């Protein structure tokens, strides 16, 4: 049995309580939600926090999927399983269900959370790519109030986010646009494995042309939130296989993956292209009612 280094543990009774604890305990404190990234790292002693603040009792404040006007608000403690099973969410943002079907396994999905996934900021983490693609923003709270940052600003690099000491991610907001849809494709070596590479796409149609399109990539290099040349190439263009191929090539050109046991750099670069094409094709088909 792998055992973590000694740590102290406290169960938060409210979001305010959790934030107060974070502020008091400083950088050696970590929030634990589902724990499916943090606890394995602690057991391998790759992470050795001195304090764990457990927020699993805060469902009333942090566990929800609400469609309010032209946006979806998702509480940070919302579990993967809820993202997978929510028909309301799938109706407006099918990319979430696409991704959740291939995230880990049922045991992890029962416990793991949206907020935990984004804050872990693993470069192979699926929901970051999803949130990139759909143009999500993140609500970060501290004792002094709330701030809202785009995914672009939220992501600072591998395992690094905009959430500072004494702060907590509480909500993710995703805009809902008419004539829009989204899709996600992932290649993994085995069910439950991290992505070899994956791509998520979201498009908004204006008649026969793409008014706005975004692609989020995963596991093919740093700083791939909202690849701007992709959006520029899609804007105002009629969807076609030639367009997808061109955009896929832009994705490949922007990828800078490293070789590891999951694959060679050349293969991952190829996947950036291939999966971008598949995601765009699917998203457009859905947005135009052809799926």
């Amino acid at each position, binding site marked *: 049995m*792998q*055992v973590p280094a000694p740590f102290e543990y406290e169960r938060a009774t409210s979001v305010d309580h959790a934030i107060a604890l974070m502020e008091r305990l400083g950088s050696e404190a970590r929030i634990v939600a589902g724990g499916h990234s943090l606890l394995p790292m602690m057991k391998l002693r790759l992470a050795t926090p001195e304090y764990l603040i457990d927020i699993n009792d805060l469902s009333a404040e942090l566990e929800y999927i609400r469609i309010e006007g032209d946006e979806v608000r998702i509480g940070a403690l919302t579990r993967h399983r809820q993202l997978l099973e929510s028909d309301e969410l799938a109706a407006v943002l099918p990319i979430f269900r696409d991704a959740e079907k291939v995230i880990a396994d049922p045991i992890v999905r029962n416990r793991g959370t949206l907020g935990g996934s984004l804050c872990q900021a693993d470069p192979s983490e699926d929901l970051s790519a999803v949130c990139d693609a759909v143009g999500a923003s993140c609500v970060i709270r501290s004792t002094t109030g709330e701030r809202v940052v785009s995914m672009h600003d939220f992501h600072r690099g591998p395992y690094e986010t905009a959430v500072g000491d004494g702060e907590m991610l509480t909500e993710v907001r995703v805009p809902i646009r008419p004539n829009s849809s989204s899709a996600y494709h992932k290649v993994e070596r085995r069910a439950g494995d991290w992505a070899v590479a994956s791509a998520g796409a979201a498009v908004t149609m204006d008649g026969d042309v793409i008014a706005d399109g975004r692609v989020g990539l995963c596991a093919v290099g740093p700083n791939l939130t909202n690849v701007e040349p992709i959006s520029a190439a899609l804007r105002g263009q009629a969807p076609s296989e030639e367009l997808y191929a061109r955009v896929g090539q832009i994705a490949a050109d922007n990828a800078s993956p490293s070789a590891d046991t999951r694959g060679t750099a050349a293969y991952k670069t190829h996947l950036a292209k291939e999966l971008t094409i598949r995601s765009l094709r699917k998203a457009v088909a859905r947005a135009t009612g052809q799926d």
Partner: protein
Amino acid sequence: MTVVEESTNAVPTPDNNLNDQKPAGFGRMLRKEDPRFVRGMGQYCDDVELPGMLHLAILRSPYAHARIVSIDKTAAEAHPKVKAVITGEDLAASNLAWMPTLSNDVQAVLATDKVRFQHQEVAFVVAEDRYSARDALELIDVEYDPLPAVIDVRKALAPDAPIIRDDLDGKTNNHCFEWEAGDKAATDAVFADADAAEDGIVVTEDIVYPRVHPAPMETCGCVADVERVSGKLTLWCTTQAPHAHRTVYALVAGLPEHKIRIIAPDIGGGFGNKVPIYPGYVCAIVASLVIGKPVKWMEDRTENLVSTGFARDYVMRGEIAATRDGKIRAIRTEVLADHGAFNGTAAPVKYPAGFFGVFTGSYDLEAAYAHMDAVYTNKAPGGVAYACSFRITEAVYLVERMVDVLAHDLDMDPAELRLKNFIQPDQFPYESKTGWIYDSGDYEPAMRKAMAMAGYDELRREQAEKRERGELMGIGISFFTEAVGAGPRKDMDILGLGMADGCELRVHPTGKAVVRLSVKTQGQGHETTFAQIIAEEIGIPPEDIDVVHGDTDNTPFGLGTYGSRSTPVSGAAAALVARKVRDKAQIIASGMLEASVADIEYEAGAFRVKGDPEKSVTIQDIAMKAHGAGDLPDGLEGGLEAQICYNPENLTYPFGAYICVVDIDPGTAEVTVRRFIAVDDCGTQINPMIIEGQVHGGLADGVGMALMEMIAFDEDGNCVSGTLMDYLIPTAMEVPDWETGHTVTPSPHHPIGAKGIGESATVGSPPAIVNAVIDALKPYGVRHADMPLTPSRVWETMQGNHTPPI
């Protein structure tokens, strides 16, 4: 005689649950051990809790190769919950720093001079709880002087390679052993002839079987308890071979053998991983001796993957000489075997390459020759593990891959090529060109049955259509023959211990019985299978027979369960011990029925007077008579029991025909195993449900090895497969619904005609899957690619960039 039976894939219904019968002998029945397992009531090593028990944790090397400059353990010793901190130097004082391996090499229990692989054992801590023991490891300060490491096996024999085993006298290179089989001159002559002949062909391919790991769900561990007054050691241990371990401890540690009791409780998977003696066991025994309290050591998942018995790691060059019309004439191979830092292979002494000598497969050849160099590298020791039947996995992979290479070059159907070259039924017993005596076989019916189940011709038609559309579909075949059931004591032993197995059977007065085995189940279902063997022979129902195993104080001597040897060896012992009891029962029956012994006939638990079927007694009646009052026939002792030690006359040679169908996504190179058809012949079947279970598990293993599993290292020798996130094993999502069938060709020398089945599917399935993938990639001109066929490796192969995995 071979019996071809209908497939047994019938789905049980509430009215007809095929697996819930109550046979009085052979047949389907639910496993007797499963009620405790499905209720979570199994008792494993880690469930053992003793009063005052302490916990042991091992400090391991961060380097693959480094000299140990100094070890400072004062801070660890000062930890309030630590009872002892022991280093290699401490063990050396008692001459315990090194121990023998099962292959007559030595292995460091704790490193003294230098570390030779990453995660090698360097020191251990004993503490009041496992958390403190683990925490205190970080307080031990070891200074290392890193050395260059040998990681690429192909560079191990280079003149400038660092010498790993400088502990061995006069060792000036990394050569471990050399081995050969077959007739080199005769083989070379056939190759020269085939090369020169107009109608001849020679094919060559480099084939790697990468390092993989059995990764049993339960890791290795033990609880050692040296009783202070008597000095008796009781060791609860995750061992597949409790008796062999006891004798080795007695010979090595100087403990008297009667003062050692090894108990192997329920085991959560072995696959060969639990055959060797690991340093951790020795550390726990030493700790209990030193401290006088029971000590538990259970390795964690990472320790299991990075330090215990790995499998395979053969770099092979295969060659076939044949005629252009597809008659295989000879096979030749040159092998470079990576044995890690210590030769920890568990194989019969005269077989350092295990049974790799059966690389001639199921084919009738003119000649064959293999040559092997085994080398040391800075990697974990091991070698024979993961259900490999003593290296037959590598042998079968080599020959079945090479036959497909030949089919590729001849543009011939691989099924047709195999059918053309099989050893024929009238050739058995067949002596192979490497000296193995195949006991029985009838290959064509098994092959034809698999092809019929698969709808082979229809699959080929479908494939042709799909190729027209640019879709990638592959059909792969393997036909394997194994040699299992080690082994005849005339030439097989491990550390001087003969590979025979004992068995004791005692029938109680009320007709219930206890049978004691020397082998040890790790999930194979011995408690059911062996009860069925006894039931078949003497008619006591399986549920009335208690099967005792895994405790050296309560079972007869024998070498344990691995290499598919339980049914071929111990199963034969069980049948013969039951016949001994039956013979005595017949004498008692003759007294009870007042007839001569020769006039008594036995059938299904009843003894009858020939020609007078009304006069009969049951085995239960006889048991009471044997223990009861009144006279027994003259000269007969009371009681109804017997014991035996069975020495197998030969190995048994199970075989099978496997067909795999895969689809490959041309855009992402992902492989999907769509269908898998497995026709096995393990001779007489005892419990077909258990056999199917063994086959299902082995096929899943094959999917893992073919598509995802590999213990990998970076160039510095860091193992990068130390968690189950990195070392992938297949899930239900990656495997199809298995389609199983069987033929029955009994073994002529086994008392009930049974052959081993435990490893057939692990041995036979990887080449079928790889052959299917290569077949799918035929439009890309692909002739070979190595395992594991991850999407990345398949895609690189499609680009013409295939590189071997190591």
